[in-house]
């Protein structure tokens, strides 16, 4: 009897120790998974640098040849090669951002402030589905449907607004131009901005809104007084994220834009600009190893640009996003602790 009891207690002791170890092991597994993230990002930077190094510090002669063949004999210097690409990337995505921001704000306000609940539900899901459409389908649609069908519109813009430098020049037909690309990019980043803006607007304190309405404000004045100031930071960060997406977009640009290598503002003329991402995808399959390392170096430039944009988004709204993801997400008033003190458990 004593014997069995003692083995029993040993076995529970063993299993308890195991459990304790299991606990520690489990904790360290999760920690390692977290550290892998750190490792991956370091690896991304390091390997891109390793592969891009020949283009920056390696055999000058080879690099010169690679850049000359990539740029079609235009230049032999890396920065004069990548300059117009940076310009084209920023131009297309910035135009897309400007267009998308206003539409997205309108849709987000419609969903949160105007629409009846069922309609809002359907519309927000439709917008989310738009975000799910693969970029290659946007490219295909843009290249085969949008390009032929938008020419009359661009022609009209060119005729009546040609005095604005952006719309000057001879409108190209087919319009494989920055204008069409920006239109497609607008559609692509619209859902991102819209869904973030929607989430922020939804968390506007009801008290603020009712206070504005109670003072006699109209619906629009209420939005201007309560909703927009409350969501300002979130909207800016949403815009930054949308910009980041547009900067890195490859396929839509590659499939629609007729590339060029100029610092040109003529949106309606083809063969003016090219973006970094589309340039990589277009040139990569036919490049030798020196050419590949130049392209990877341009990819590194793109990485740095999007990194800076994302850091800016992170810094501008560190608070707005992080409070949103904490436990108190369910209570709309808890988003900003200045308004109402919220207990941790809620």
């Amino acid at each position, binding site marked *: 009897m004593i014997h069995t009891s003692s083995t029993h207690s040993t076995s529970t002791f063993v299993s308890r120790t195991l459990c304790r170890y299991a606990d520690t092991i*489990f904790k360290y597994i999760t920690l390692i998974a977290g550290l*892998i993230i750190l490792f991956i990002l370091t690896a991304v930077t390091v390997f891109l640098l390793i592969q891009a190094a020949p283009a920056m510090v390696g055999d000058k002669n080879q690099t010169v040849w690679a850049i000359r063949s990539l740029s079609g004999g235009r230049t032999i210097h890396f920065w004069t090669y990548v300059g117009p690409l940076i310009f084209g990337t920023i131009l297309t995505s910035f135009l897309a951002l400007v267009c998308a921001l206003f539409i997205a704000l309108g849709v987000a306000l*419609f969903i949160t402030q105007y629409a009846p609940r069922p309609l809002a539900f359907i*519309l927000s899901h439709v917008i*989310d589905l738009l975000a*799910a459409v693969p970029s290659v389908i946007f490219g295909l649609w843009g290249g*085969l449907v949008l390009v032929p069908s938008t020419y009359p519109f661009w022609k009209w813009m060119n005729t009546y607004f040609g005095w604005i430098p952006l719309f000057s020049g001879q409108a190209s037909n087919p319009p494989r131009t920055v204008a069409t690309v920006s239109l497609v990019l607008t559609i692509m980043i619209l859902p991102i901005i819209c869904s973030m803006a929607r989430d922020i607007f939804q968390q506007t304190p009801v008290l603020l809104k009712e206070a504005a309405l109670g003072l006699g404000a109209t619906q629009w004045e209420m939005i201007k007084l309560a909703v927009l100031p409350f969501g300002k930071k979130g909207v800016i960060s949403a815009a930054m994220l949308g910009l980041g997406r547009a900067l*890195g977009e490859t396929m839509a640009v590659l499939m629609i834009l007729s590339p060029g290598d100029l610092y040109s503002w003529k949106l309606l003329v083809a063969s003016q600009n090219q973006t970094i991402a589309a340039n990589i995808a277009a040139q990569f399959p036919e490049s030798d190893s020196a050419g590949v390392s130049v392209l990877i170096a341009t990819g590194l430039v793109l990485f740095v640009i999007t*990194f800076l944009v994302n850091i800016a988004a992170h810094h501008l709204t560190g608070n707005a996003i992080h409070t949103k*993801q904490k436990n108190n997400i369910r209570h709309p008033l808890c988003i900003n602790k200045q308004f109402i003190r919220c207990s941790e458990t809620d």
Partner: protein
Amino acid sequence: MQRNGLITSPIRSLRSRQYHDHAMTILIYSTACLALLPLIAILWSTISHGSTRFDWYFLTHNMKGVVGGLYPYGGVLNAILGTLLITITATLISVPIGLFTAIYMVEYAHGGVISTMISFLVDVMSGIPSIVAGLFAYALFSFFFGPGCINGFVGAVALSILMIPTVIRSCEQMLDIVPRDLREASYALGATKSRTIINIVLRSSLPGIVSGVLLAIARVIGETAPLLIASGSVSFTNLNLFNGRMSSLPVYVYNQYAEGMAVCSASARAAVHPCIPGIRMERAWAAALVLILIVLFLNLIGRFISHRFSVSHL
């Protein structure tokens, strides 16, 4: 708060304020209508153009021996299988990493230095342009296995770079909304922390995690640029992830589009199985239709699961 409108409003007449209100209402309603247009247009184009070539033959044949617009019209089987293999591999890589990181962030690190850093890095990682992810995978493998190492697995690594942040974010949210009471009840019964996490927290947030993973898959399954660089394309069906190029649906769509119109002679057009000049565009649309069906299916399933089994319904 009052600096914007109410201070100046006494100067404005009530009529002008109402006029403003109506104008803005109309504007906002019209943007909402405008936002619906692209999705409808894209779906309509894809379905109407894609249905021409979308049939059983197209789904069950690959592109081997297909020349120009001539008779064996070819199909998309190689691309479908490639996409499935690459995406499944990417999922197998990213779900464990993503899930465990999310567990660490929610359950173990309570706002420590490491957790702040990881959270920041996840933000940075979710901003990596897809083509840079492809370049990274290519650079990584060509560093270890020599230049020109392009196969399905490289593509899967590229996709998992894009997938991990999405998985972490959605898992984190799902773990976050598990009520604290459940965890405390489990501790009170004497369960250890790891057991509580596995048996209580993960189990009650499982539907949310599954739906998050499905949405993440739907997001990366349509990625083209990284696969264009890291996996390439090939005309026959390649089922070996580690050897040789591997087609995928998005790259297939792009390649068909990029190759342009086929050249057909008059006699070939009059043959029993005619030469079709626009065959590549038809194939591109049909493959796009397959892709969009897969993506929409995954999305609907994901949303259905998260809607039906969300924590509030427990």
